[in-house]
């Protein structure tokens, strides 16, 4: 009951959207399914990638390098699987590469106090360089990524097939949103993480090892970027090209701000972006409006700007995000 009253705004919004979508489903089942499908497909990598940012920035480290983390992971996942002929190795390679990239960011910024924005940009440049340099044409995955049907849940009309009959990364994204949300706001780790992101000196005085915790959080968050990248190359596309992530890591940053550094709101924001894209595409298909393809493609970016110019002033980032912690300098 207390939960209901505390979250009445979010829950009532969720209820309205759900009822609206089911009404739409009742009128036109095929269209509603396909639009929800493409919204979520658009949102999956963004949810994972934005959560990298949530964990990093809640711990006080800004991560501009999500794009690069995703790109190298997409590369490692795809070629790992293509060369060894094993999807499992590909998945592991992708996630591990993400963690490795996270470690890179963590050590350069937290340990060696490299400017966080610059570290991210360097990471992106390195990622683009490495993945282009070692790129080889003409490889394919050994097999399609398997889909898993969640019992009972996948039989729900509309949302069942869209959310609960998916590959491993998509299911992980769905689960991790709630796991990270719970961990951040209901566990000791979460309290400490938020403390080192808001006021590291106080956390330090209270006995939290700020440096160690930032190192671990940023490194492990890289694993989520690894999943986002491997999702793109292995699960969504089944291929890899140069510059494959196409700015999704940056979109995730915008979604992170739009979602006010909360995992559940981040997911809502990502779905909203996905839905807007799906709507534009659907209008195009239905020939309701004649919009050139270029404008459809840039819709998410324009929306990001509009959304941020409304939202940015109203939400408050973790106070210490962007500043390195030096013990004893307050």
């Amino acid at each position: 009951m207390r939960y209901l009253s505390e979250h009445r705004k979010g829950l009532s919004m969720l209820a309205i959207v759900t009822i609206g979508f089911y009404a739409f489903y009742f009128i036109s089942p095929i269209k509603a399914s396909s639009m929800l499908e493409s919204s979520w497909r658009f949102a999956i990598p963004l949810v994972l990638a934005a959560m990298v940012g949530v964990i990093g920035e809640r711990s006080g480290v800004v991560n501009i390098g999500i794009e690069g983390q995703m790109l190298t992971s997409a590369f490692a996942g795809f070629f790992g699987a293509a060369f060894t002929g094993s999807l499992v190795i590909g998945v592991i390679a992708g996630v591990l590469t993400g963690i490795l990239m996270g470690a890179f960011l963590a050590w350069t910024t937290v340990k060696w106090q490299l400017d966080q924005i610059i570290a991210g940009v360097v990471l992106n440049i390195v990622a683009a360089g490495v993945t282009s340099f070692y790129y080889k044409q003409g490889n394919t995955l050994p097999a399609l990524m398997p889909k898993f049907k969640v019992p009972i849940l996948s039989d729900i009309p509309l949302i069942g097939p869209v959310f609960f009959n998916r590959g491993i990364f998509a299911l992980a994204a769905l689960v991790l949103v709630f796991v990270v949300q719970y961990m951040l706001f209901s566990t000791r780790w979460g309290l400490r993480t938020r403390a080192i992101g808001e006021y590291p000196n106080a956390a330090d005085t209270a006995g939290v090892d700020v440096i160690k915790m930032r190192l671990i959080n940023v490194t492990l968050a890289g694993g989520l970027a690894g999943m986002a990248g491997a999702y793109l190359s292995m699960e969504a596309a089944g291929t890899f090209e140069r510059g494959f992530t196409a700015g999704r890591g940056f979109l995730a940053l915008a979604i992170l701000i739009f979602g006010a550094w909360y995992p559940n709101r981040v997911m809502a924001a990502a779905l909203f972006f996905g839905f807007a894209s799906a709507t534009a595409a659907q209008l195009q298909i239905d020939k309701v409006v004649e919009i050139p393809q270029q404008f459809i493609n840039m819709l998410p970016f324009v929306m990001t700007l509009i959304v941020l110019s409304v939202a940015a002033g109203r939400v408050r980032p973790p106070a210490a995000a962007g500043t390195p912690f030096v013990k004893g300098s307050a």
Partner: protein
Amino acid sequence: MIDTEDAVATAELTPLRRLWEFIVRYQAVVVPLVALGLAFSIGALLIQLQGVNPSFAYQSLFRSALMTSDGLQRTLEKATPLILTGLAVSIALRVGLFNIGAQGQLIFGALGAAWVGYQWASLPAIFLIPAALAAGTLFGAMWASISGLLKAYRGVHEVISTIMLNSIAVGIIDWLVSYPLKEEGQILQRTPEIAEQAKLPMFSFVPAGFIVSVALALALAWLLNRTTLGFRFNTVGKNKHAARYAGIKLPGAIVGAMLFSGGLAGLGGAIETLGVVHRYENGFNAGLGFDGITIALLARGNPIATIPAALLVGVLRAGAASLQFDTGIQPEVVDLLLAITLLLVSIPLLAGVLFRDRAAKSEALTSGWGS
């Protein structure tokens, strides 16, 4: 930095010690050179791993970029827009803004110059060239001002807005050269060629645009270090609160710096159009704006230092093609070399290892979301 006590003592030191003092004093130059050396060593290893003799590969790269007058011309042509985008990113850094959007501003500038260049073909060169360059500058400045305004009045972080505007610029321009500004009867997405008299001249192997951009680098150094405007920019970049307290209007400084920054990037695109490409064509300006980021960071926001940094990138870019032709090594090895150099220069670690407690303190160049 050397304090007076040390300076007095230096006079009585052995030559070797004096050399060391000299090196410590000029560590701002030494560190990038060491970083470059290390990057090339790592690069040599990567090239070796690809089964190519690294010294042959590097020879091929540098010979083609520096030893022939054709190659030298190509190097300078490559360096020209890079100096300008490097300056664009640098001046924004001085105000504490990280302009990732030089690429979008540059392609708008390139398109603006191309449009003027073929639309007003009846004008003589003396009017047409300045008009085209001005159009490029204006287009770039306008595009950048969106980020400036969003930052100043809505608190949208410039890193996000400029990245979004890059993608939007690509979309708008792609549409423009696919429909309204498309050369008739062409399959390629490009504008018509600019008028003959709009093409920038060449002095022996030195492109006119190169001279302009070097002059602008010097002018900008003067602006930043010797004028009130430069003082305002630096103050805002160093300490926002102090700047506000001193009566500097922050929104004005932010929008102003973005206008400058975008104008420089746009001019870079305009010069590229008038001097090299001679029209706007999709894909011809790829990466110039992003290299500007690398260059500005290598130069640590110093306008004069952008010249050697841009030349370095220019040499590598100009030589990459023949490197691939001679050895089969992917030209992206150049990006790797630059990325490693940039990493080593940016991390305070290298200076710390070299100079221990005498390493110069590096200042933060950017700001987090909140400020």
